[in-house]
């Protein structure tokens, strides 16, 4: 899955800021995704909702709207079943 930085540059104002956002996102994604999966497995719904909220916001900045929509569903209804197969382990 490729990251669309064009939208990011327009939101953040500079290519340098966009690049830093991408680097931080790539660095934090595996850990946050693991935390989300663990919270869902542990049925820790509040933690799952909060983590999904955080990841959703970052995905929206990167134009990853499909992932953001799934994360929005997890945030709203963490105790429903969710298909996480679209989520890449790394970017």
């Amino acid at each position: 899955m490729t990251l669309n930085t064009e939208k990011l540059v327009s939101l953040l104002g500079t290519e340098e800021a966009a690049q830093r956002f991408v680097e931080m996102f790539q660095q934090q994604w595996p850990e946050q995704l693991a935390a989300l999966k663990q919270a869902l497995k542990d049925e820790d719904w509040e933690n799952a909702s909060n983590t999904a909220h955080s990841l959703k916001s970052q995905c929206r900045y990167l134009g990853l709207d499909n992932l953001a929509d799934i994360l929005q569903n997890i945030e709203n209804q963490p105790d429903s079943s969710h298909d996480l197969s679209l989520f890449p382990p790394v970017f």
Partner: protein
Amino acid sequence: MQILLVDDDLTLSPLTKEYLEAKGYTVTLRHSGDEGLNAFKSGNYDGCILDVKMPMKDGFSLAEDIRKISPDMPILFLTGAIQKEERIRGLALGADDYITKPFSMEELFLRVRNTLKRSANQQKQADKSVHQIGQYRFDVATRELYGGPEMIKLTAIEAKLLQLFCESDNGIIRRDIALQRIWGDEDMLKGRSLNVYVSKLRTFLSEDPAIEILNVHGEGYQMVVREST
């Protein structure tokens, strides 16, 4: 101008801080509601930008606490796709503006600038105001108190305290809030100073028996002006 930014998004918030600093603001960044409240209590801010959804203490709860200390503090909320209930709750708390994520930094800057400008204009108006207190007339801008045998020029702290009484609901000011708004902290020694300044105001206003400044146990003080019969 000093801005308090409270956002738990570790990726975005440092960039938001940098962008606003490049526009000339001084930005203090905190990542939780509790940290944000502590920063607010120890700082002197012109405005706050609060993320709505944060674990533990959310942006709305933080705004409620900030409003208790500083009722007119400009607050701009950062939010995801906002629900109607959330919008109403924010408006009830006196939200000055909302901005929805993902937002552009330019738009955020413009909203912050406009919000602070509106607030500064309102403050200028408030500073120009004149309050009638029984037989006395208090000019906020000049810190002059008329109505006694002679005009009294109040010190900055005396004037600030009297202004707090005049602008509070029912003339009641909470002790902790008065300390925050006058000195920026709740230090015990400042608490003693507050007692001294209240006594001075009682003396300044003593020509009119209809005016009283009462101790409200466990709360603070209340300035009462009885209707003349």
